[in-house]
C-alpha cells in the first residue's frame, strides 16, 4: 500500500524563523530572525492568563498548530510528535520530589504528560477527533509523519501533524542539548479529495538506507541546534519547492527520514495537480 496524501497547509515556528515566510527566506539564504531569549510565541487560542499557566513547550506546539487548523475539518485527527515533550515541567516536578513533602501542584502534574500540548490543543479549540502523542528520539519527525500518513490513508481522514521540541533546563540540558525551540506543522488530507488549495502531494514508503544528513548550509544551521525537529527542514523545503529539475527533467525530491529502526521512510513530494 502506498501512503499518499495531499498537503494543504504548512506552518513553522522557531526563533530561527518565526513563520513559514521567514523559513522560506532563510532557505533562500537569509539570516535567522531572533535569538531564543527574545522569542515568545503566544497562540491566539489561549487567553494571556491561560498561556501563563502553560509551559513554553505547549505554547510552541499550539503556535505551530494554529495556522494549519483552518485547513482541517472538525473530525480531523491530530498527531503531536515530540522527543522530549514537557521537559521544563518535568524538571519542576523532579525538583519538588527532592523535598520530603513531595508536593506537586495539580496543574503542573496534569500538564507534565507528553500529551499535555495535544490535550490543551483539543481543549482550547474544542476539537473532538482522535489525537495521539508520539516520540522516537531523533526519529520523531519520521515516525510522526509515518503515523499521520497511515491515518490519512487507512482511515481516509484529514490529519494535522505537529512536531515540536524545546530546550531543556539544566541539568537535563547537558544530557539532551537542544539549543533552540522549533516546531512545524502540516495539514494532510486523503489524496482522493484534492482541492485547488493543495500545496503538494506527498508519498511515503519504507525502504532501506539511513536518515539523510543535512545537505545545505541552511539545513546544517538547523541541525546544529540539536533539535530533532530540524529533520523536517528538507521536507518543508521540498514542499515549498514541490519539484525540481535534474538534467532538464522534472524530478520529485526524495527525503529519507528515520523511523526508529534500521529502515527509513522515503518521502517524495510532488506539485499538486
Amino acid at each position, binding site marked *: *500500500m502506498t501512503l499518499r496524501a495531499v498537503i494543504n497547509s504548512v506552518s513553522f515556528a522557531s526563533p530561527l524563523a518565526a513563520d513559514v515566510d521567514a523559513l522560506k527566506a532563510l532557505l533562500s539564504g537569509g539570516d535567522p530572525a531572533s535569538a531564543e531569549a527574545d522569542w515568545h510565541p503566544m497562540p491566539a487560542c489561549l487567553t494571556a492568563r491561560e498561556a501563563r499557566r502553560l509551559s513554553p513547550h505547549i505554547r510552541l506546539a499550539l503556535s505551530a498548530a494554529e495556522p494549519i487548523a483552518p485547513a482541517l475539518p472538525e473530525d480531523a485527527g491530530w498527531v503531536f510528535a515530540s*522527543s*522530549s515533550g514537557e521537559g521544563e515541567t*518535568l524538571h519542576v*516536578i*523532579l*525538583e519538588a*520530589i*527532592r523535598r*520530603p513533602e*513531595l*508536593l*506537586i*501542584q*495539580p496543574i*503542573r*502534574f*496534569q500538564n*507534565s*504528560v*507528553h*500529551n*499535555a500540548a*495535544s*490535550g*490543551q490543543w*483539543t*481543549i482550547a*479549540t*474544542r*476539537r*473532538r*477527533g*482522535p*489525537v*495521539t*502523542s*508520539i*516520540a*522516537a*528520539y531523533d526519529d520523531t519527525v519520521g*515516525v510522526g509523519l*509515518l*503515523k499521520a500518513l*497511515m*491515518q490519512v*490513508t*487507512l*482511515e481516509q481522514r484529514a490529519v494535522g501533524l505537529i512536531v515540536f521540541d524545546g530546550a531543556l533546563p*539544566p*541539568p537535563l540540558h*547537558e*544530557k*539532551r542539548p537542544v539549543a533552540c525551540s522549533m516546531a512545524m506543522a502540516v495539514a494532510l488530507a486523503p489524496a482522493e479529495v484534492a482541492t485547488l488549495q493543495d500545496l503538494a502531494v506527498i508519498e511515503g514508503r*519504507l525502504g532501506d538506507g539511513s536518515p539523510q544528513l543535512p545537505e545545505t548550509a541552511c539545513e546544517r544551521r538547523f541541525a546544529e541546534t540539536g533539535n530533532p525537529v530540524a529533520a523536517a527542514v528538507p521536507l518543508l523545503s521540498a514542499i515549498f519547492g514541490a519539484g525540481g529539475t535534474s538534467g532538464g527533467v522534472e524530478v520529485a525530491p526524495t527525503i529519507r527520514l528515520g*523511523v*526508529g*529502526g*534500521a*529502515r527509513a521512510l522515503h518521502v517524495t513530494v510532488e506539485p499538486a495537480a
Partner: protein
Amino acid sequence: MGAQEPMAITAFSLATCLGAGNAVHAEALRTGRSGLEPCEVYETPFLCYVGAVPGLEDCAPPPALTAWDNRATRLAEAALTADGYLGRVETAVARWGAARIGVVLGTSTSGVEKLEGAYRAREGDGPLPSEYSMRHHNDHHAVASYLMARLGLAGPCWTISTACSSSAKALVDAHQLIEAGLCDAVIAGGVDSLCLTSLAGFEGLQLVSRRPCRPCDLDRDGLSIGEGAALLLIERAVDGPYRLSGAGECSDGFHMSTPPEDGAGAAVAIREALAAAALLPPDIGYVKLHGTATPANDVSECRAVAGVLGMTTPVSSLKGAIGHTLGAAGAVEAAMCLLALEHGIVPGCVGLSQLDPVIACNVPAVARPAALNHVVANAFGFGGNNCALVLSR
C-alpha cells in the same frame, strides 16, 4: 480501523503486582485476588496502596544491554521472559525477518524513576552523574528502543505517550502498521513503573485512595497506582486465537484531568469501536472498564457504557486487583481480557462491596464463568483522550 487485513494476536505476556505470566493472572481473574499492598517501595508522607511487581531484582537486562537498566526496562524483562514470549518473537523473526517487525510501545513515565533518584542524589544545583543517560532511561522512547535492541528488530519503532490511554493506542498503531503493509508483525504493548512523580502527582490532585482502590463502590475515594508491562505479538495472515477487531479513538476537548459528566467522549469511542468491528451491542459479552475508582471517572464512564451497550452487559474494572498501571494499563488490561476470553471468565470488580446507586450498569463483584466471544476494553487518559478496543476470539 477495520478487519480488512487478516491478522491475529498470536502471543502475549504480562507482569503486574499479581506476578508474571498468564497462569497467575487467569487464576486471579477467577478468584478476585488483589495484589495491592501498602506502599513499601518509597517513603511517602501520605498513606497509599500500590501494585508493585515482585521479583524485579531478578529481571536485569542481559549484560550487553545494561546501559538500559532501570525499573521500566526490568518490567519489560519480566514480561519478555514469561510464558515463552521471547521464543515466540524469535519464531516470528525467523518467519518474517527483523526488518519486517516493528515495535509500538505505550508508556507515560518511561524510566523517569531512575531520573528521580539521580535528582535526589544531586548536590544543590549540580549536574547529573556523568554516567546517567537520558536516552537509555528517562527519554520517552527509552523502553521502546530497549525492546528493539533486546529483540534484534529493525522495523519501524515508536512510543505512544497519551498518559493512561498510551498502550491501548499502541495496539491500534501496531494494527495500522500491518494493515498498511509496512510490517508483517509488530510487538505492541505498554510499560510503566511505579515512581514518585505518579504517586505525588495524583496525591496532589487528591485522587489517591488511602485504602486499596474500590472501583464503582459507593465509598470509592480514588485510585491506587500500580506498575506493569504487557507485550502482545500481532502477526499478519495467520490463524490466531485472538484479534483486535475494532477500535475507536476520540477527544473530549473538555478538561485535562476530568471527563465530562455525561461521558460523551467515552461513548463515541465505544460506538466507533463497535462499528469498526461490525458488531452490535448484544454481541459484547463483557466490558472492561477503565474504572480508575475516582468518584468522577467511574460515574462518567458507566453513563457512557450504559448509553451505548445498555444496562445488562456485565462490566468491571481490573484496577482493584492490579492498581492503575497508567501508560501500561491499556495493554496490561487488554492482555487480561484475552485471558478472560480464553478461559471464559467474566471478571469481578475487585474491591467492590456496595455498588454506587448512581451507576446504572451490571457490575458483578465476583467473577463468574461465561463463554465470551467479544469484549470491549476502555482506556482513557489525561487531556481527555479516549480509546476503546474490541477484543475477540
